[in-house]
């Protein structure tokens, strides 16, 4: 461990091609700046998020590019600089956390401090365990503590070394929202004094809304947009992102009527007579909007349903049924075309077939407005 680190942004320009026999070649080609504080790296799986983090950490060597924080160059292909991962002082918390199973929590956290005198080391370990509220676990093994505690220990272990940058690869997946928020609060509190750049990877839209001051959206190895969650969400290119993040239905429409007292509005889908009730957004009648709906959020009924709380019931015809491993993809024509996912069991018990007349049921809040 060297002396104090001044807060410095992380800058990276990275080109990395990955080839293997099982998948088509993948090219990561990005240029980004991560300022001190939280930045969300958002994108679907396979977008290149982990490859990008691996390149920054020094676990994967980029084909070309330059990575630096402040004055310190970590990688520069033109100058043949490639600082080894062990000397980069880049903290990295994996999704699997990779706590050392044979060491206690205290030993895990002390692992990165081997150059220090015992007294100094013990003080730092105690302080950091306390900052992440796991000081009472110091003598336990990682196998004996809960998931949330493990995540706290993993954060403490990587931050105790006073790193230049913190990379988090979906470390909080699988935790409930409350626990996640508590851990993020402690992380923010810790970083209030240190002010290092924190790059937080997620593919969850909810986390983007909950965490982000700044968001970098990545898809297919390229950066789509950078900005606040609002900027990113409202950018014209968001449609691609919405699709990438699992919204199979993207429908253009026009606002017909606002019902502000109910918090909803009615939208007519373009070139059809279909109308949907959607959550209210800042718009006036006549405004164009785009609605994103997950194929799995749409219900299918073989008779006209009655007595439902769902506000949107559309009549249509099944165009085809495509069987996949665990689901059946059904395009349904209701004037507008919808893609619906149903389970193979539902297809069987409802006796669904191509050409059949069905009713689609959509909750108001399953209709996400993206523009």
């Amino acid at each position, binding site marked *: 461990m060297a002396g104090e680190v001044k807060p410095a942004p992380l800058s990276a320009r990275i080109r990395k091609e990955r080839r293997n026999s099982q998948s088509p070649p993948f090219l990561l080609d990005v240029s980004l700046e991560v300022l001190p504080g939280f930045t969300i790296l958002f994108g679907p799986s396979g977008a290149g998020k982990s490859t990008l983090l691996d390149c920054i950490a020094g676990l994967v060597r980029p084909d070309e590019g330059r990575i630096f924080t402040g004055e310190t160059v970590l990688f520069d292909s033109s100058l043949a600089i490639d600082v080894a991962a*062990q000397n980069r002082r880049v903290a*990295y918390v*994996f999704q699997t956390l990779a706590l*050392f199973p044979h060491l206690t929590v205290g030993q895990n956290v002390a692992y990165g401090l081997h150059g220090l005198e015992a007294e100094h080391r013990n003080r730092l370990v105690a302080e950091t365990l306390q900052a992440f509220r796991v000081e009472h676990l110091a003598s336990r093994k990682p196998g004996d503590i809960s998931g949330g505690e493990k995540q706290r220990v993993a954060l403490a272990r990587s931050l105790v070394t006073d790193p230049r940058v913190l990379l988090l690869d979906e470390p909080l997946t699988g935790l409930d929202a409350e626990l996640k928020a508590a851990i993020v609060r402690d992380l923010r509190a810790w970083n209030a004094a240190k002010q290092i750049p924190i790059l937080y990877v997620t593919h969850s839209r909810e986390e983007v809304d909950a965490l982000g001051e700044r968001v970098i959206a990545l898809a297919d190895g390229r950066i789509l947009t950078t900005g606040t969650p609002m900027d990113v969400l409202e950018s014209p290119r968001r449609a691609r992102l919405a699709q990438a993040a699992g919204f199979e239905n993207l429908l253009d429409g026009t606002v017909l009527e606002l019902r502000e007292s109910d918090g909803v509005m009615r939208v007519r889908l373009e070139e059809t007579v279909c109308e949907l009730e959607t959550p209210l957004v800042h718009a006036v009648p006549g405004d164009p909007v785009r609605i994103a709906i997950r194929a799995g959020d749409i219900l299918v009924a073989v008779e006209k349903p009655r007595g439902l709380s769902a506000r949107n019931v559309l009549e249509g015809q099944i165009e085809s049924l495509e069987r996949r491993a665990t689901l059946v993809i059904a395009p349904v024509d209701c004037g507008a075309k919808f893609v619906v996912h149903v389970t193979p069991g539902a297809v069987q018990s409802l006796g669904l077939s191509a050409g059949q007349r069905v009713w689609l049921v959509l909750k108001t809040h399953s209709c996400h407005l993206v523009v």
Partner: protein
Amino acid sequence: MESLWLSFRLAACVAVILLAIGMPIAYWLAYSQWRGKFLLESVVALPLVLPPTVLGFYALVAMGPRGPLGKLWMTLFGHGLAFTFAGLILASVVYSFPFAVQPLVVAFESVDPKLLDASALLGAGKMRTFWRMILPLSLPGVVTAVVLSFAHTLGEFGVVLMVGGNLKGVTRTVSIEIYDRVQSLEFGAANRMALLLLAISFAVLSVVYAVNRRLWTPWPAK
């Protein structure tokens, strides 16, 4: 019982030497990206398939007064290598090589690579990662390697006969003595020694399987 004591000394020396040279070789085999790695893997496995007499024959040729090892030994120590305890150790090391290296390779390869990445990201170099991560997490494999090379050396016969001969107190190991006793029709003595060897081998293998059954052991704190 002199021969049993000799066998134990031989097996212990071989096990210690094999652990020392087996670890770097196993490390290389486990982590090298080199495409020609299979060549070394084949060499390591050779003693498994070669008849001990073939191995012993070449060992004897190499150690003889005109062989390269024999000549080197002569200039260093002033006496020959064949039919000595040192020569026996050398040949046994080759003979038991795969029994030490293969369990180590398997153990090293089964350590989660993410743990090694995490160790490097926390500033640890290759040596520190080896001593603090790979070795403790491979402890069952290390025990297996030591025990198997010990047990395999304890029971060897053909190689000893070829390079050691049958010198009382120098190269007459327990397996050779059993053979001797049978040849001279002393079945009672042969049986006692054979039973003892059987019991020891069983105990040793029980240790190996017991160790490998346990996934996590209470490691020493540091």
